[in-house]
């Protein structure tokens, strides 16, 4: 098993589906920060076979994790403070996702007027379905609509 040093404050995002760490990295906006980030891919996992892990050293309040559940709701979020895990939680689907994904509907006003923010609302909590705030188009992963 690969060893990566422990962090003093921040997050360890565990049980990420193998191959998805970089999607999270971009959607959390980590590529735009100067924080220390460890990206571990294809780590061995008894439960999952293979998994990805992200370690992010930052102030707890500085990272917005709302988008996590939208990308992968099976992730485990370990909150680290003073080098210890102070909380372990599963991500909850946010009511609204703003500026993360793009509406795929070519008839949507958000694709005609680029200054408009792309906003999606949670239309079905049980199935994790999000729809565009403007045109109600359902977001699907194949839309490949990441903005960040």
């Amino acid at each position, binding site marked *: 098993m690969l060893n990566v040093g422990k962090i003093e404050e921040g997050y360890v995002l565990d049980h990420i589906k193998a191959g998805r760490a970089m999607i999270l990295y971009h959607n959390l906006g980590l590529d735009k920060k100067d924080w220390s980030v460890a990206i571990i891919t294809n780590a061995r996992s008894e439960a999952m076979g293979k998994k990805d892990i992200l370690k992010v050293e930052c102030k707890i309040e500085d990272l917005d994790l709302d988008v996590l559940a939208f990308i992968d709701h099976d992730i485990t979020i370990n909150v680290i403070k003073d080098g210890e895990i102070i909380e372990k939680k599963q991500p909850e689907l946010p009511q609204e996702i703003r500026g993360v994904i793009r509406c795929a509907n070519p*008839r949507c*006003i958000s694709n005609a007027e680029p200054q*408009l923010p792309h906003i999606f609302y949670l239309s079905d909590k049980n199935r994790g379905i999000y729809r565009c705030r*403007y045109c109600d188009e359902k977001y699907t992963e194949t839309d490949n609509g990441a903005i960040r």
Partner: protein
Amino acid sequence: MKRDLLTPLDFSKEELNSLFDLACDIEANPAKYAHACEGKKMATCFYEPSTRTRLSHEAAMLNLGGKTMGFASAASSSASKGETVADTARVISCFADIMVIRHPKEGAAAVAAHYATIPVINAGDGGHQHPTQTLTDMMTIRSLRGSLDNFTIGFCGDLKFGRTVHSLVTSLARYENVKFVFISPPELRVPDYITEMLNEKHIKYTEVVRMEDVIGSLDILYMTRVQKERFFNEDDYVRLKDFYILNKDKMALAKKDMYVLHPLPRVNEIATEIDDDPRAAYFRQVQYGVYVREALILTLLNIHVPEGGQTC
């Protein structure tokens, strides 16, 4: 706080009932409301062509004693210079008391409402919503049948891009024991967000291709036009535009008290030979549309007309 009408669901059932009651009173006592909007101005901002929707709103405002202004195409507005909907909405707010917008892009009315400081009426945003047509349709059904509960309604034609269909289904789903029958070619089926909504509410619906198979079970038949402007591919439009034509032979299979509605304009999906059939209600529907838009303008402007006829 200002109110807008972006989707038919912006009004509760109780509010809709009050609106329809008001529209009925306007129909019965037009003189009482003739000066209700004196001194008020309505801007009609139409980014795509429309005859009846724009004129219906303007007629409604004129009947109430108000004034109207606006533009009838994107080419004659600042949109041709690249102005955004948000900026246009801010500017119109300085000129008018209420704004009516039709725009080819879905969600444009929601953007206008967000940035405008005056009430905004969505008069159609692409293939998405057309709530004032829905109010018209509901008012027509209520007037013809006496109730919006306990009936079977068939929607026929372009159910994929037909925004009037989406809005009306969503609205009628709130009433008791309304059954839906969707009649369309496979390419123009009703979108999944509509069927998802019906499934969640455990509301019965069926989807069929042949009108003849179901017309005898309907209390209302809502016909739609296959709209050329909704297609990216002209070949698809040509292939599907004549899929359904309602004629005397098909009407012979229908109930004696089944009413035919259509948001108009009609092209050839309803043969003119049935225009004189007492069940053809699509021209009466247009008149109901003016009354209900009058009621809507009064409601959004928060104008109350007492029995004597003066505003308060």
